[in-house]
């Protein structure tokens, strides 16, 4: 098999611009001029247009959805393949309507180069600017600009120059380079494949010539090795670390650095089916095994010893916000960068950029489709790069429960690299003979703290017992720490006053930590009413901690009253009873919610069991 340094010889080109400026029409026209419309398709589209009482529309080649054809707009992004005499291309059509920015980004994010199309008659519009700005955030800093609908302005050079000046002024301000500018008409076919006679004043090439002669393999990155760990497979007696080289190359003799653990390690073997090589380059997937057992997990980042990524807990970022829900500074989001996931919050919005005039907007909190600069904080250390050093390992998305709400790129210059700070020469960690990784490999799962919080009677203990049993018989090392039981031992003598409750939680969290150090999955079943205390418990080992909210309303728990405690509390026979005479602060962002009011016990148990199993298992394959 040949060595491939650039796994890309089919360029991906995205077409962006304001709604109705001719993106889909341009691609349709190209397909037609290059004679690549399938047999019968032309006739079919004619019928489709007639049925809707429209003129023949090239855009229907791509706008395949009924909603798109009926409304005459592109809703979702599409990709179409075509070839010129010189090479193959993938064209990505992106919707121009502001409602569908998320689809535009979905399309544009994978492009090598962009074409920004503009209706010369209408001139620059809001989405022309917004799209250009988003391209920049996506790392596409070069564009080909097309001035479409020249037929509508009688092919007047002056009109073309006027619009071009305005557009280039804007591009210059946002640091996007306009490479070529071509006056075209997608509808008539001017300057698409052949030079048009109607634009004698234009001395450049038609679009396809420009595309064919462009050098797509430009890369401004430093090409340092970045290998994010995608997964760990256990295959007979091997522990195979799989992933993809995002940048640089990896050789069998290299010494590697694993982050965030900051451990050095040598490679024992490369793994590939049916046969492995000695060296892998950017874009290639591979498996590797290490010459010694060190702790590596999904989401870790592997690099060379020289020029590793930074290890950050605070960083700045440029974001585009995609969700209907406003950004919330009090909320926990999941940041996904390469194969890693981190719990973060947005500490501050530095500014919201009005893409129309490039000034700071006076809004405080970003809305849907806004672009902004923020400060992000994480309690875990995130191996990440600055966008100008390594594009692919600097871009991330933010998730809010089950929705991707944002995407962004990291800027690391204003906050310290924690790797340097944590290398304290005065602290020597104790080396145990049995390490965490040994335990995890023997038990086939990682350690974990499953923290179940909820009102008395919500079902914590019942679910915990069932889940423990199921996991145990599946071979998990699992153990329950139950609030009531602990109060007979280590927590004996603590009352239900706020101070004692805090101490109760602290002790329980420390015991849970010991169990997790021993390789166990500990299920903690504890009312733990205060958010701040649960956060402290999480902070002991955030990577292993999962907060599970066992949800049932107070009314429901009073109704259930299995232990008869609510009845006593209501009659004031028990003091400081959570929900009655003492507060319960429900989790704002638990890792999992189990709603015992609306789902039966079997379903609750199954849900938690499969959650734990998927979060902590080391999969065999």
């Amino acid at each position: 098999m040949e060595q491939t340094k650039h796994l890309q010889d089919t360029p991906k080109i995205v077409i962006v611009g304001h709604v109705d400026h001719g993106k889909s029409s341009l691609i349709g026209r190209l397909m037609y001029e290059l004679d690549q419309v399938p047999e019968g398709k032309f006739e079919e589209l004619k019928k489709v247009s007639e049925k809707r009482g429209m003129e023949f529309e090239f855009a229907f080649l791509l706008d395949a959805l009924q909603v798109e054809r009926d409304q005459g707009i592109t809703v979702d992004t599409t990709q179409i393949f075509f070839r010129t005499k010189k090479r193959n291309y993938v064209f990505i059509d992106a919707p121009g309507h502001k409602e569908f920015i998320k689809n535009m980004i979905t399309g544009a994010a994978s492009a090598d180069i962009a074409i920004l199309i503009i209706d010369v008659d209408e001139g620059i519009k809001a989405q022309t600017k917004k799209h250009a700005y988003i391209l920049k955030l996506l790392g596409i800093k070069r564009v080909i600009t097309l001035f479409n609908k020249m037929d509508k302005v009688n092919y007047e050079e002056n009109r073309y120059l006027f619009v071009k000046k305005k557009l280039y002024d804007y591009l210059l301000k946002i640091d996007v380079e306009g490479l070529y500018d071509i006056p075209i008409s997608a509808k008539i076919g001017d300057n698409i494949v052949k030079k048009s006679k109607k634009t004698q004043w234009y001395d450049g090439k038609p679009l396809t010539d420009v595309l064919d002669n462009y050098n797509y393999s430009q890369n401004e990155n430093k090409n340092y090795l970045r290998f994010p760990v995608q997964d760990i497979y256990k295959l007979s007696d091997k522990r195979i670390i799989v992933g993809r080289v995002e940048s640089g190359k990896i050789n069998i003799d290299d010494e590697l650095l694993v982050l965030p653990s900051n451990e050095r390690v040598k490679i024992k073997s490369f793994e590939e089916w049916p046969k492995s090589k000695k060296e892998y380059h950017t874009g290639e997937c591979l498996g590797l095994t290490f010459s010694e057992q060190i702790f590596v997990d999904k989401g870790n980042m592997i690099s060379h010893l020289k020029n590793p990524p930074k290890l950050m807990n605070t960083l700045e970022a440029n974001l585009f916000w995609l969700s209907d829900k406003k950004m919330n500074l009090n909320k926990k989001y999941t940041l996904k960068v390469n194969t890693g996931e981190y719990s973060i919050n947005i500490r501050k919005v530095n500014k919201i950029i009005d893409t129309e005039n490039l000034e700071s907007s006076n809004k405080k909190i970003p809305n849907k489709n806004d672009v902004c600069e923020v400060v992000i904080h994480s309690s875990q250390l995130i191996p990440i790069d600055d966008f100008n050093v390594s594009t692919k390992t600097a871009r991330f998305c933010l998730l809010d429960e089950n929705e991707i709400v944002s995407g962004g790129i990291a800027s690391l210059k204003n906050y310290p690299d924690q790797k340097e700070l944590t290398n304290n020469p005065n602290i020597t960690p104790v080396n145990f003979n049995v390490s965490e990784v040994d335990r995890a490999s023997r038990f086939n799962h990682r350690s974990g703290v499953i923290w179940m919080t909820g009102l008395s009677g919500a079902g914590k203990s019942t679910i915990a017992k069932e889940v423990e049993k199921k996991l145990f018989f599946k071979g998990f090392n699992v153990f329950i720490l139950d609030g009531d039981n602990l109060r007979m031992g280590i927590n004996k003598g603590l009352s239900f006053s706020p101070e004692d409750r805090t101490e109760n939680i602290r002790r329980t969290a420390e015991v849970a930590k010991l169990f997790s150090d021993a390789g166990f999955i500990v299920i903690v079943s504890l009312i733990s009413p205060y958010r701040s205390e649960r956060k402290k418990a999480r902070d002991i080992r955030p990577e292993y901690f999962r907060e599970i909210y066992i949800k049932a309303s107070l009314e429901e728990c009073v109704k259930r009253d299995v232990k008869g405690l609510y009845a006593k509390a209501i009659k004031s026979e028990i003091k400081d009873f959570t929900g009655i005479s003492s507060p319960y602060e429900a989790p704002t962002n638990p890792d999992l919610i189990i709603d015992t009011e609306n789902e039966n016990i079997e379903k609750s148990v199954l849900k938690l069991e499969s959650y734990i199993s998927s979060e902590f298992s080391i999969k065999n394959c």
Partner: protein
Amino acid sequence: MDSHLKKLENDSIYIFRQAYRSINNMAMLWSLGKDSNVMVWLAFKAFFGKIPFPLVHVDTKKKFKEMYEFRDRYEKEWNLNLIKGDCPPVNEIDPSLPPAARSAARKTEGLKKILKKYNFKGVVAGIRRDEQGTRAKERVFSPRDDTGKWDIKNQPPEFWDQSNFNYPEEVHIRIHPLLGWTEIDIWKYIKSQKIPIVDLYFSKKGKRYRSLGDKDITFPVKSKAKNIDQIIEELKTTKVSERSGRAMDHEQEDIFEKLRSTGYM
């Protein structure tokens, strides 16, 4: 293998591993066609020679004899964990659909039955963008609700290889590792890896099948291509679309979208 194929191969392996990591209980459709076999091959590559989840053949009982022979042979040879599912009779399918589409929709119902029975949360399907306009609009990881519905007006964002995997319990995810491949890529890859295929794809008496489906609604197209090299040459110049021999595609303008939005592959 040229560098473009190498890139496609690596992209697909990444998708397989991402799916296996993120989805609890998944399976892969194996329709016995060329794309499906490429997919099995890629899964071997992703998981070092042994696929760690079941394959599913949704059997309409109307496939070509050659396809059944192929299935039985490679189920053993490749040591596959294969689930064979059946489909309801056509009279149980929405009568408002035109005949070929109605017949094809049996497969949708067969698939839904299996998903439910095994509680699969993810299923790998070998669709490609260049086959059909609505498939070109797909995501790599595409959610379907409990009725199999595809919400085409509101697909989740997907960029930089980041997708959402947190969906409500009743949702399953369609995984599309071949979305970026074209028909000619598939054939070049089959050639480079020597992947076995059903020989219905090769020309006999001046005709060959470009795409395989149920035998009563799938027709061969004119072709002289008798081997893989000739197929690749043919595809460089042909203007006949790949699915031109699939009757279900041509009954109504919106028929494929209708089928897909209710759960067809």
